[in-house]
């Protein structure tokens, strides 16, 4: 984490680029070539963002979206992880689940939104189910691949040293498959994050980040849209870097599986 000169140079250049891009945007916005409602100036976007954060509406939207995404995501892990392990360990399960999964996987989760709306009504159930659908397959497939990729030599070695089924599972299979499982979690979260925004736009409820953006379109509030985009991007980035980054550190690195992650 030491900041090398190379790193400083990069930060400097990045700042310069972003400032230049901001200045360019600002010039276009100020020049009035495009209507101000469609291309709001940066101070206006900033102002809107601060206002929305200040009066708590943005936090409430964030809260609703996070709850939905977490429910669907957790649900997908609860189903995908054990099912993936079972598929890798038991042939019959694999034979049954795999054809279904390969038929359902190419269907984008958002295609189900209208059907789910009809079945479950507008609201949280639809959004959570869509997130579940989106997150389920990356979780399932990565776990399946991961468990199958566990070196059989390790299994036999552990078996020869007298490990019972439980120990084999927790001490060999799970750590061995961890790089894949974490890749699965990452991919699953990325997909859920896309799915939740789309589902919130389509299955309109009153709260949620996707809904704010979509609703702002009706009133030509481009400043609200851009402010929400910033928040959405920020949360996505935070999850990717902080949550999954540290998860990787405490599991994969600790178990010494880094080389396997690299391939």
């Amino acid at each position, binding site marked *: 984490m030491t900041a090398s000169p190379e790193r400083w140079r990069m930060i400097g250049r990045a700042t310069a680029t972003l400032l230049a891009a901001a200045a360019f945007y600002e010039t276009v916005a100020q020049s009035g070539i495009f209507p101000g409602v469609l291309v709001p100036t940066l101070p206006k976007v900033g102002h809107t963002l601060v206002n929305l954060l200040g009066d708590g509406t943005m936090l409430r939207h964030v809260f609703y979206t996070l709850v939905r995404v977490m429910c669907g995501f957790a649900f997908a892990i609860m189903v995908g992880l054990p099912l993936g392990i079972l598929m890798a360990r038991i042939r019959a399960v694999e034979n049954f689940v795999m*054809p279904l999964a390969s038929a359902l996987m190419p269907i984008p989760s*958002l295609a189900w939104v209208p059907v789910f709306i009809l079945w479950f009504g507008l609201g949280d159930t639809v959004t959570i189910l869509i997130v579940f659908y989106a997150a389920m397959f990356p979780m399932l497939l990565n776990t399946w691949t991961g468990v199958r990729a566990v070196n059989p030599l390790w299994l036999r070695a552990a078996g020869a040293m007298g490990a019972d089924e439980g120990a084999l599972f927790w001490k060999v299979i799970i750590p061995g498959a961890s790089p894949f499982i974490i890749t699965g979690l990452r991919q699953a979260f990325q997909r859920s994050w*896309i799915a939740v925004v789309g589902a919130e*736009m389509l299955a309109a409820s009153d709260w949620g980040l*996707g809904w704010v*953006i979509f609703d702002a*379109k009706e009133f030509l509030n481009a400043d609200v849209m851009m402010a929400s*985009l910033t928040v959405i991007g920020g949360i*996505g980035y935070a999850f990717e870097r902080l949550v999954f980054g540290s998860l990787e550190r405490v599991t994969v690195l600790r178990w010494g599986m880094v080389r396997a992650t690299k391939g």
Partner: protein
Amino acid sequence: MGARIMYREPRWRVIARNAFPFVVVVAIWEVLAHVGIFPVRLFPPVETVVVAFVRLTVAGILPHHAFDTVLRLSGGFMLAAIAGVAVGIAMGRWRLAEDVFLPLVSIGAPIPGLAYAPLFLLWFGLGNLSAVLLVGFVSAFPVIFNTWTGVKAVKEIWVRSAQAMGADNRRLFRHVILPGALPYILTGLRLGLAQAWRILVGVEMLAAVPWGLGWLIFGAREFLNTDVMLAGIVIIAIIGLALEKLVFQRIEAFTIVRWGMMT
């Protein structure tokens, strides 16, 4: 792949094994639909869906929707491929381009693509232009990242030896950099196409395009035509599977065969 398997199951057994889970699911569906726990309009039996599928296909409605969706997908993806590869190569070759684009791309990438949808609709209006531009914009990110990585991964020693042997810039690019980076570029294109496909259906629902599978499903909801919606989803699954089998697996096989599994 098939050649590597030592013992081969007879063909009919493979087919039967893959068909079995679908038979089970269809049977459960039929029972649920006929028992009448759910209203038939919302939960039509399989034969109704099949009839709707055949009727719409014969009338030419379903092919028209599917054709427009595929056209939009290819249009958006073409944009992404051309722009993405160009930007990625520029970033890999020139320091300045890297400094300019990398911060912008890193900021844009973590925002889920659909979140941009309302902004694009506001700027470019409802309809095709927005849909194609958005699909292109969103799928460009993986293409840019992978192309950039690929160009950077070309071994310095290849470049220098080519230069020492008197290759000019054009030859260097054509014979060293492009082939060296190609496996990564193809991976990027594959990811980009998958991304485009996942997002397109949602975009069609939001952008109110005149024809398109997303719009078909979304429109059918208004009239409670669940059979039409499910028929639309079947077509979506078929296109998705075709993309996977005809495009992705081809690309993968191509890169593996030519470069021995480089990515």
